[in-house]
């Protein structure tokens, strides 16, 4: 099987965020960047499919910063090669989707995996956009996957339950937590990954569709009435919820 996993380089979720000097992006100073956590589920699923059916796993990223670090992580997990599309400036989702689609359209991938969202802009949009640009079906937020030849059965989380979706390859899948338990690369895997190829591909020029006007930290408008646990304190909280906030 010919498998592609699209990954992204994101700030560690525990990182403190500060607004950068341009007021439109975050200050990247002191920010630790990691492989997007959901992409680990996507990688693991692709690698397991390869281990079962044979084939190759390619990892791909589009980034304005040097993303070879996270591509090496993907290679250490078990991807065979990587593609790095270096953007001239921070790309928006539209540019990322067009770049992925453009670079893989002739490569006949059977399955294209993504994490359900990148934990930077949390938009859940690249998988379906890329699938549409490639004119292939897709399933988002997949927590269980069966692949038998060209037949794919995916289970995905919806409000209050699960949906089972049937489709066939080629297709795109966005991975949800629970799909599998991603492996930790061992030292020999990390060493091996250093020798695996990373191909640099030129950025496909399209204009961004979405412009960031400004970024700001949320303003805390919370009431902030924090009391103790005495009976009268609890009474006061219940009264506030009932009479002030009117939520009960």
């Amino acid at each position, binding site marked *: 099987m010919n498998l592609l996993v699209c990954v992204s380089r994101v*700030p560690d*979720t525990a990182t403190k*965020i500060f*607004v950068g000097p341009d007021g439109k992006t*975050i200050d990247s100073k002191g920010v630790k960047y990691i492989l997007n956590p959901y992409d680990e589920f996507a990688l693991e699923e692709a690698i397991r499919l390869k281990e079962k059916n044979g084939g190759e796993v390619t990892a791909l990223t589009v980034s304005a910063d040097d993303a070879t670090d996270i591509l090496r992580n993907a290679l250490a997990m078990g991807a065979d090669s990587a593609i790095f599309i270096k953007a001239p400036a921070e790309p928006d*989702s539209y540019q990322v989707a067009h770049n992925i689609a453009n670079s893989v359209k002739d490569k006949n991938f059977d399955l294209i995996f993504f994490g359900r969202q990148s934990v930077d*802009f*949390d*938009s*859940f*949009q*690249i998988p*379906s*956009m890329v699938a*549409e*640009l490639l004119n*292939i*079906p*897709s399933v*988002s*937020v997949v927590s269980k996957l069966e692949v038998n030849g060209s037949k794919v059965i995916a289970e*995905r989380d*919806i*409000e*209050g*339950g*699960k*949906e*089972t*979706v*049937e*489709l*066939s390859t080629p297709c795109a899948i966005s991975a949800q937590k*629970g799909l599998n338990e991603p492996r930790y690369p061992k030292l020999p895997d990390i060493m091996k990954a250093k020798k695996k190829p990373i191909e640099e591909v030129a950025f496909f020029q399209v204009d961004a*569709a*979405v*412009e960031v*006007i*400004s*970024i*700001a*930290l*949320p303003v*805390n408008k*919370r009431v*902030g*009435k*924090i*009391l*103790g*646990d005495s009976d009268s*304190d*609890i*009474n006061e*909280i*219940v009264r506030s919820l*009932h009479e002030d*906030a009117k*939520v*009960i």
Partner: protein
Amino acid sequence: MKKILVYLEPQNNSFKRVSNELITAANNLAQSSSAEIVGLCIGGNSSIYPSAGQFGLKKLVSVEFSGAYSSTAYAEIVSQVAKAESADVLLFASNATGMEIAPRISAKLDAGYVADCVGLEIVDGNIVATKPVYAGKALIKTKINKSTKVFSLRPNVFTAVKNDVGSPEVTNFSANISDNDKKASVTNVSTNAGKLDVSEADIIVSGGRGFKEAGNFAMVENLAAALGGAVGASRAVVDAGWRPHAEQVGQTGKTVSPNLYVAAAISGAVQHLAGMSSSKVILAINKDKDAPIFKVADYGIVGDVFEIMPKLTEKIKAVKG
């Protein structure tokens, strides 16, 4: 902005509440321009159409669809309707369906798309959309530089406002759908029967690791029952196997915005805050007065959850009579 297409989702014998929120949001956008608003409903019973008029929807396009939900087919239908109606703004709910089809539709229409918006306003003639980024640690304001603009709106953030305009005028649209468009079709739906899902609840009571063991979650269930709400859980609790993943609130679980969110014995890790910080009112209960959850809480009780939960449940029952 000429025409706003609002994607409506039928559910049982009504539209989802978020559909009404989208109609109100569309009306707010249209106020400062002469934009028309048209709703779109695929499948569903026509008897529910008049209910959309109570929130100000005057026109509705109805598309018959036989067979199960298919993201590829639905995306094709919406695109065909958007083109036929010359809609230049499309609104979706940021839920399981909207998050899956809106990006696909935006690609079909070569539109710009902003997902999971918590604010939409008109500034100098442009629609400025606000969305949380970096797990809600920051908010960005965006504008779309494409003639067609697609937005998905976070449920329960935009308030649905009653504005009765009578039954909407209904037009039937027959979409041109081939089998090739049904490439991904749903073959089965399983629901957590009888249980209110956190993503659709007005009130959520979530418990964390501080409950020490699965059995003690009865306290969370009791408070949720007293409030008529759903039970939620932190990641630690789900990872420990005490509660199902469907109840997990946070970055690796669900994003919720209920009217009241009760966080009991949850310290408030950034990943948890990502899933609930847009809740309207937050009550935190924790023994550690310095727990980060108190920084985002409207109300807080510092103390032992094992003592507080039963007392709180009784007092709430008394108030609710």
